[in-house]
């Protein structure tokens, strides 16, 4: 009964929405999130839930697939690093609010120490710990090896390596040229551009949350919700034919999912105006082209005029519009996800004639 409910609720629509709501709440209530009690409580809660889920044979068969062990390690490290950095940030925020320097800036911590032995021994310790970890891992888990390569028989599902499964999951919502080329390039360019966009001089060299709220919220949203979360869905919840399967649902390749996604042009001309699709493709896609233009030009223009003047003059035009463009690119993914879930929208602009589907 509970397992059925979890299967149902882990569908991307509900789980992604819940994740986003929890994310916003966490960012708003750093006074709760940034405490040891919260971290311990969440850790115990997660371990208990995870332990209970692993006891299910179906879920266990999925997480023990070859190459899924690294994702468990990734999850543990992401979980710890997120909480720990927010905890340290919150500690520093309290100190700064009380008029003290951040913990990294106390006179004691600004003192210079010898690299030998302080740094060298720390590194040695980390290297030894990492070596032991890797050797134990290598002894207890054989590297996966399947049947010899057979170009005539494709396994179902055929999955990319786990670190690219976020991109493969985007393929559900975008065509390959967006999910596989444009968005990854935007991610790389966006990451490199971060230091040039973020002109806030505070928070350089110490953990903090309050001094750079929006930078941290924006970055961690992309990192956790649009990268890590999608990897989880792509790895654990996508079975044959890339169909969604709940964590306790057997990967039955005959599961039938109604795929009746429609393009915006069909919505507009056939359902809205009750006429046939126009022959000229640019007329046919006019609504999608206008909407894309509104999204890329009119929305930023209006938002800037209404709320962004201050920011624009502070950052300068190039920085500001680069930021706007990157944020619009990033948010296009959740927007497209919700349009698919609520309206079964396939493409906003569909020009298969040019392989240009948006």
């Amino acid at each position, binding site marked *: 009964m509970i397992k059925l409910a979890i299967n149902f609720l882990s569908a991307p629509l509900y789980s992604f929405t819940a994740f986003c709501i929890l994310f916003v709440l966490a960012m708003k209530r750093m006074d709760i999130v940034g405490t040891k009690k919260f971290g311990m409580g969440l850790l115990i809660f997660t371990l208990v839930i995870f332990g209970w889920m692993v006891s299910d044979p179906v879920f266990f068969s999925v997480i023990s697939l070859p190459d899924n062990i690294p994702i468990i390690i990734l999850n543990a490290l992401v979980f710890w690093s997120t909480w720990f950095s927010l905890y340290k940030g919150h500690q520093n925020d309290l100190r700064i609010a009380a008029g003290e320097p951040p913990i990294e800036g106390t006179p004691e911590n600004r003192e210079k120490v010898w690299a030998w032995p302080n740094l060298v021994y720390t590194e040695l310790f980390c290297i030894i710990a990492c070596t032991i970890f890797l050797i134990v891992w290598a002894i207890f888990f054989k590297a996966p090896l399947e049947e010899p390569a057979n170009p005539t028989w494709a396994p179902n599902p055929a999955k990319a390596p786990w670190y690219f499964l976020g991109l493969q999951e985007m393929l559900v919502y975008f065509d390959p040229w967006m999910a596989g080329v444009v968005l990854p390039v935007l991610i790389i360019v966006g990451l490199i551009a971060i230091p040039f966009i973020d002109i806030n001089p505070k928070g350089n060299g110490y953990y903090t949350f309050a001094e750079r709220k929006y930078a941290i919220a924006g970055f961690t949203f992309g*990192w956790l919700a649009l990268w890590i979360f999608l990897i989880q869905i792509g790895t654990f919840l996508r079975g044959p034919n890339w169909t969604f399967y709940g964590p306790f649902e057997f990967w039955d390749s005959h599961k039938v999912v109604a795929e009746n996604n429609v393009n915006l042009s069909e919505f507009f001309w056939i359902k809205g105006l009750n006429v046939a699709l126009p022959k000229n493709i640019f007329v046919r896609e006019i609504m999608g082209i206008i909407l894309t233009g509104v999204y890329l030009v009119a929305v930023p223009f209006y938002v800037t005029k209404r709320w962004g003047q201050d920011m624009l003059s502070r950052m300068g035009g190039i920085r500001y519009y680069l930021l706007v463009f990157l944020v619009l690119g990033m948010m296009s993914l959740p927007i497209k996800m919700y349009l698919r879930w609520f309206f079964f929208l396939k493409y906003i602009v569909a020009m298969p004639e040019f392989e*240009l589907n948006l």
Partner: protein
Amino acid sequence: MSEGFAKKVANTQVWKAIFRHGPPNNARNRAAVVAGNVFLHLHPIKLKKSGVQLGYTWCMGGLTFFIFLSLTITGVLLMFYYRPTAEYAFTDIIGLREHVPLGIMRELHRWGAHLMVITVWIHMFRVFMTGSYKPPREFNWGVGVILLVLTMLLSFTGYLLPWDQLAIWAITVGSNMAKATPFMGNGGPGAMLARIGDFVMVSDKNDVRFQLLGGRFVGEAALLRFYILHCVFIPLVVAVLIAIHFWRVRKDGGISAPL
């Protein structure tokens, strides 16, 4: 007794020939041990206390570098036993598994590769959360982003080499994306505009996917290409970028600390 012995060893001509200074238990020798050693001189001689604390750095960047080194060593060892051809690749891997008693080189290499992707991600997250990309470290953050992408490409190219079902279909899925590159991929937007009459300029015989795989599908040419990318080309680029990355960490003021 042991102290006397250590002193005697430190006074031998051999010790002095190798290390050129006494044991690092006083200020002068501690400076000399770091400055006079080609590996240790990546470090500054002295640094702020906040920068050596594990709670601050998490040592994720250092571990990424260490895993890169161990992957180089295990990778070289694996290369002795592996032939990148469709005929031998899979059977060589089987041989590694069946005929090497207690062999864990392939395991160390594969799990290490996964771990390196993870540690480099967490390293980036730490650098972001401490604001360490802010001036004067903007450039080095960019180098780091490129290194992160190259780490994933290293792992991706290595994924094909076992030449099993997991490998070729993961690479097929991944490289199919290249087909969709605008203007440069056969199935990408704009590609069909690039034609003169019946002559198609971007076809599946010359688009970016073809260049990547050396063919129209993941076959023997792709195996050789990925092998060379994985073992030679990308590691060389990564090594150069790591040198720049470390150099700039030092030149941009060392591990970040409050200004």
